[in-house]
């Protein structure tokens, strides 16, 4: 039953996974090949509670094998075994909002279940490999992704950058080719918002900017993780992070890290994954007042750093 969604299922590829979905997801890259799906999205009933969750937040619960995410006015998502997300829409919810949390928190949880390392960040491809921009919401991750997209760089991810930490080198596989930007960032980048769709109906001032997709199954070595930090410095500056500080930063910027505490084995594995990433990639803090930077100055600083 798990394998059968029927001929009418939509097929996509994201994060190196073939996804079969009952729901149409225009944000995702359609899958051109006929590989067996790795992941299924289906609609159906979900429980109100998991049995004996190891960790519980206001809107989520987690066990070793399952996450339950309850976005009350939108849907409840049951994420199981890294293979399936069951979505139970709330009455009156809209399809766009369903997908925001499906492709965000739910998919982030699923990637944890599959033993991957999802970071809260955007990512671009440079000549040296992948560069990831992490940081709290509103600090400029998506702004940087959009900025570099306009300079001809390929955007690999926005908001959820998923690393495969195993193999000879940690690598990132592309997510989906859209960047979500607030109106002030669009203005900063001289992009006209009037032709863009809202990220969610009624969520004013947050827009969806499509970007050029790259080869969807390409896995690119991660060369640097940049972490956006607001400091009192007026000019942007790049500071290498090392040792325990770097590990702590990577942990803090892990996507949905709050779910990890419920995951037992994966929680332990996560510690080694960030250790491996720190060993192979440079971890760099970007210091400066976010969105007050002269963007040209930051771009120059980063492009020089990409070559390091």
């Amino acid at each position, binding site marked *: 039953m798990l394998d059968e969604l029927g001929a009418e299922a939509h097929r996509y590829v994201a994060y190196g996974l073939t996804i079969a979905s009952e729901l149409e997801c225009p944000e995702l890259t359609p899958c051109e090949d006929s590989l067996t799906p790795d992941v299924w999205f289906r609609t159906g009933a979900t429980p109100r509670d998991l049995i004996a969750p190891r960790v519980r*937040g*206001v809107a989520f619960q987690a066990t070793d094998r399952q996450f339950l*995410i309850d976005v*009350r*006015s939108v849907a409840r998502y049951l994420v199981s075994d890294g293979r399936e997300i069951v979505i139970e829409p709330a009455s009156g919810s809209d399809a766009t909002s369903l997908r925001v949390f499906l492709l965000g928190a739910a998919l982030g949880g699923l990637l944890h279940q599959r033993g991957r390392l999802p970071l809260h960040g955007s990512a671009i491809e440079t000549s040296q490999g992948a560069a990831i921009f992490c940081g709290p919401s509103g600090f400029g991750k998506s702004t940087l992704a959009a900025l570099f997209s306009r300079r001809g760089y390929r955007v690999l991810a926005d908001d959820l950058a998923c690393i495969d930490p195993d193999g000879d080198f940690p690598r990132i596989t592309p997510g989906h080719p859209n960047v979500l930007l607030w109106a*002030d960032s669009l203005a900063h980048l001289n992009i006209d918002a009037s032709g863009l769709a809202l990220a969610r109906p009624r*969520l004013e001032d947050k827009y969806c900017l499509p970007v050029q997709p790259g080869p969807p199954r390409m896995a690119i070595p991660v060369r640097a993780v940049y972490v956006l930090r607001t400091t009192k410095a007026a000019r942007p500056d790049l500071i290498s992070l090392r040792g325990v500080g770097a590990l702590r930063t990577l942990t803090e910027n892990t996507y949905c890290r709050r*779910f990890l505490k419920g995951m037992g084995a994966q929680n332990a594995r996560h510690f080694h994954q960030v250790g491996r990433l720190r060993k192979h990639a440079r971890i760099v803090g970007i210091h400066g007042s976010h969105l007050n930077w002269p963007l040209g100055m930051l771009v120059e600083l980063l492009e020089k750093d990409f070559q390091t």
Partner: protein
Amino acid sequence: MSPIIWIASYPKSGNTWLRAFLANYASDGSQPVELDDLGTDGIATDRDWFDELVGLESSNLLDEEIDEYRPELYELLAESSPEPLWIKVHDAFGYNAAGRALFPATATKLALYVLRCPLDVAVSLRHHLAISLDRSIDLVVGEAKSGARSPGLSRQLRHDWRSWGEHVSSWVDEAPFPVHVLRYEDMLARPLETFGAAARAAGLAYDPARVARAVAHSHFEVLAALEQAKGFVERPAKAEKFFREGRSGGWRHALSPAQVDRIIQAHGEPMKRFGYAAGLDAIGADSRANLPG
């Protein structure tokens, strides 16, 4: 479970000053506590708290969806903390769409509510937000909404001040838990008595000598000097200083009679209730006539 003590006020009414006193009372050190170490546990509308404890990115949620989670967020915070939590809040007390109090009694020990004459608040607010006096008065009288959406993501969740008078009565009259009220003007005129009473109400072990030391370490000039030396993270980028004047009655030199009148028209009754009518003898007869009673 350790309940929350809300340190609540309309903006620019003395909230930070009270928190500075409480931090100095708790540490009772030989030096004043640094501004960035005020040691209270955060602001109720902190976005990171929400994202962490609710488990969703608030930047993807509508304001009313966020409000739906807030009572449980605070309950979870209270449940998870072995120590009492002192949380600053500028929101008016209110309810979410489901009818639950945003600040639930189940998570609350009490609120320390600081209020200040709205005439001085209007003047202080205009400097803090770098806006015109008339725009500041629009906010104070409720003709403009606070947190009017900026086109980007703020570090805080939307918080709704409502008008000054609505803010005051929402906490003092509607909140379903004890509310200890203190006036900024009494903090200035009778600091030992006023701060001491707040410490006792909050359940702190009361020691008059310790109160006196904490009052000295949180005096306006001390706070202003600390800001001058090292800055203050709570100062908005456009404001010249956070600690600007620290006195009452400055409105007399800043507000026109028409501006005073606007505020009295809107808030005459709570102004009288909280002892702000007596100081208005310098204004015109028309304005005085607008005061009830």
